[in-house]
């Protein structure tokens, strides 16, 4: 039980260490998911939904206030012409740009997410991770995207990872916590499942695949395994955990396949930006381009879409 009573970490012993994942079987399930044909009204609807699920992201060392401002304006109004196009779910920035983003997005309903805990490596003392998170929360971050200590996880110190997440959750207060597993470093789907279970038991509101700094970032097999972990957690506890694949989703068609995965694994309750997000930057324009094509019948050149 935390001091302020906001969060009670669940028991570590609830984590089932014996869940196994068969990669070939995951491939079989995905083959069916990928064969879904999304056309016409269904395609437009899904594209609008996907835009509304984006965490528009800039995480560069050379980020500037101007870049962040531009990102915020894009998030609020992705396309100048079409008013029916919804805003994105959030913008995702480093902690030092939270205050600026918060100001820019005021009243828009678009959230500010901050990466935290010595993003992207997570290789820093706990005290610094806590400070990092506190700074972002104090600056007004609505959501915290933390990274787990993959080094600790891979050498089997699961308690450490559990405690670290639980601790950061406490620091988050009202801010939503997304836990980045950095699945590209976890090697196997068994490990992805275990990391997901630990993160959810420790208090994650969302589990997220990647930082975007490591390849491969989000993949469909990894996302499916994480969605199935969320399903199992829901069956067991009744708690709904969100999912955020991040990095590497660049094509419109791919985004729709992710939505098919969500629809067929978790259903209606997860098909919104409260429970599903895309961590992406270039995807937004790709979605807009497809949408405008559906509206006008023609593909527009990339120059007609503002870069963020």
């Amino acid at each position, binding site marked *: 039980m935390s001091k302020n009573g906001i969060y009670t970490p669940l028991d570590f012993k609830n984590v089932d260490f014996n869940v196994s994942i*068969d990669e070939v079987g995951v491939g079989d399930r995905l083959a069916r998911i990928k064969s879904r044909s*999304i056309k016409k009204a269904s395609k437009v609807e899904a594209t609008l939904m996907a835009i509304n699920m984006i965490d528009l992201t800039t995480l560069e060392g050379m980020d500037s206030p101007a870049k962040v401002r531009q990102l915020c304006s894009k998030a609020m109004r992705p396309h100048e012409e079409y008013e029916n196009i919804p805003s994105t779910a959030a913008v995702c920035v480093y902690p030092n740009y939270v205050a600026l983003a918060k100001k820019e997005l005021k009243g828009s309903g678009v959230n500010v997410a901050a990466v935290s805990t010595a993003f992207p490596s997570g290789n820093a003392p706990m005290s610094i991770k806590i400070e990092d998170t506190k700074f972002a929360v104090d600056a007004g971050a609505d959501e915290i995207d933390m990274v787990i200590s993959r080094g600790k996880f891979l050498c089997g110190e699961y308690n450490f990872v559990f405690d670290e997440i639980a601790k950061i959750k406490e620091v988050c207060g009202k801010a939503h916590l997304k836990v980045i597993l950095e699945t590209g470093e976890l090697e196997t789907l068994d490990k992805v499942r275990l990391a997901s279970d630990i993160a959810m038991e420790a208090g994650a509101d969302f589990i997220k695949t990647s930082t975007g700094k490591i390849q491969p970032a989000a993949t469909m097999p990894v996302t499916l395994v994480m969605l199935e972990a969320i399903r199992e957690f829901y*069956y067991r506890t009744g708690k709904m955990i969100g999912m955020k694949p991040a990095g590497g989703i660049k094509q419109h068609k791919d985004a729709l396949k992710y939505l098919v995965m969500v629809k067929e694994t*978790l259903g209606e309750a997860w098909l919104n930006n409260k429970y599903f997000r895309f961590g992406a930057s270039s995807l937004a324009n790709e979605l807009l381009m497809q949408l405008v094509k559906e509206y006008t019948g023609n593909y527009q050149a990339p120059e007609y879409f503002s870069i963020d």
Partner: protein
Amino acid sequence: MSKKEKVLDKKSKKAIEDIAMNGSINNSRKLNFDTSWQYAPAPESTDHFKLKKKYDLFINGKFVKPTDGKYYKTINPATTETLAEIAYGTDKDVDKAVKAARKAYNEVWSKLPRKEIAKYIYRIARLLQERSREFAVVETLNGGKPIRESRDIDIPLAAAHFFYNAGWADKLHYAFPGKSPQPLGVAGQVIPWNFPLLMAAWKIAPALATGNTVVIKPAETTPLTALLLAEVIQEAGLPDGVVNIVTGFGDTGAAIVNHPDVNKVAFTGSTKVGKIIQKALAGTEKKYTLELGGKAANIIFEDAPIDQAIEGVINGIFFNQGHVCCAGSRLLVQESVFKTVIKKLQDRIENLIVGDPMDKNTDIGAINSKMQLDKIKEYYEIGKSEGASSFQSSCNLPKKGFFFRPTLFWDVAQSHRVVQEEIFGPVLTIQTFRTVQEAIDKANNTAYGLSGGVWTDKGSKIFNVVNKIRAGVLWANTYNKFDPTSPFGGYKESGLGREGGLHGLTPYLKM
């Protein structure tokens, strides 16, 4: 059942449930898969080809009218609309076909250099690939299977069987070293309606590759792709009479089986008909292979990757509406994961799209015929009256055509008819077991022995279990995977002989 027994039954049911209780699953937590976002209809187009109004028999390289001049209608089971009229071949037509096949064998086929035979078979394979879209659409229209399956499985696999067997045609001496493999002569073949073109390929390809000629009868409800195959055979320039296709009903098939000048009979279909054929052939010199029914056990151990096992079980029973002789129709689940498995199966079933087979998103198409639908409905009632608990998906079914919801039965016992008898539809029975030995015993406790599946993360357990199950094909951590290089066939009442692979050549050869 007496009152006392009833109470006991309830109690024991509860006790079993408590033991099987996987505390983590709470049935009140439901996922809603009837989402506001739906897939729009995505029908495959049919305007790239035209069916003929009437199809004749394919005898001696030409399409010829049936002697009695009789035709019957073949329909689309998804709409019940008539697709075409099909010739009803009689014993006279069969006799003509066998004579043509004999003549072709004696005068042409047996005298050709082996590599020339291979060329013809390769040509059929390539033409099938070229016309694969048309074949897929016709297969779906005539048989009711989803276009996704005919497009991705039936047609490519049929072509693969021709390719594979073509490769053997000039290498039979290497296939059977030290022996002198010789063709038998005329092969008479009768095939079922569940995989019309694939079964035709499965039968014709090895017969030709081993140097035999063929008289084949497609199933009465699904003759169209076999007749398209006749066109391909014409186009491939096969010598007249090497392949003859005689459409018709059971009596047409019987005429082929009983024809005195047929050297080898290959039959795929029901165990009932298989037994009749075996009786008819007893005491004759004809060689035969029978590929009959099945009631395969699919076994999930508690250490299995459950989510992937669920997908495999779904694929195992609902592939082709369950019209699969090797379907995994009996699920055996270890007690400790029973509740999880039931829950996940239900959620998965709610995501299966049942309906228009021509829609690219359809998972479960139309039941092949009214007769088969009635049979499945009857078994559903039998299951209910035997006291099974059941679950059916909540999807809407099309108003026209023959459709049946994917169905689960549990609380069933080994003695129940739905557990013992082949339903040949989208109906899965689920039983629990406690020990490995119990799983093996239950798996073997049936008249059939065609196939089976084992789901566990332990390699040693896989080898232990599959070696003790008496079935021709066993899959581990997967199901319904087919390849022309792999032999297929049954134990016990599931038939005799093997088809596919090297083993599939031997029934067509004397050595």
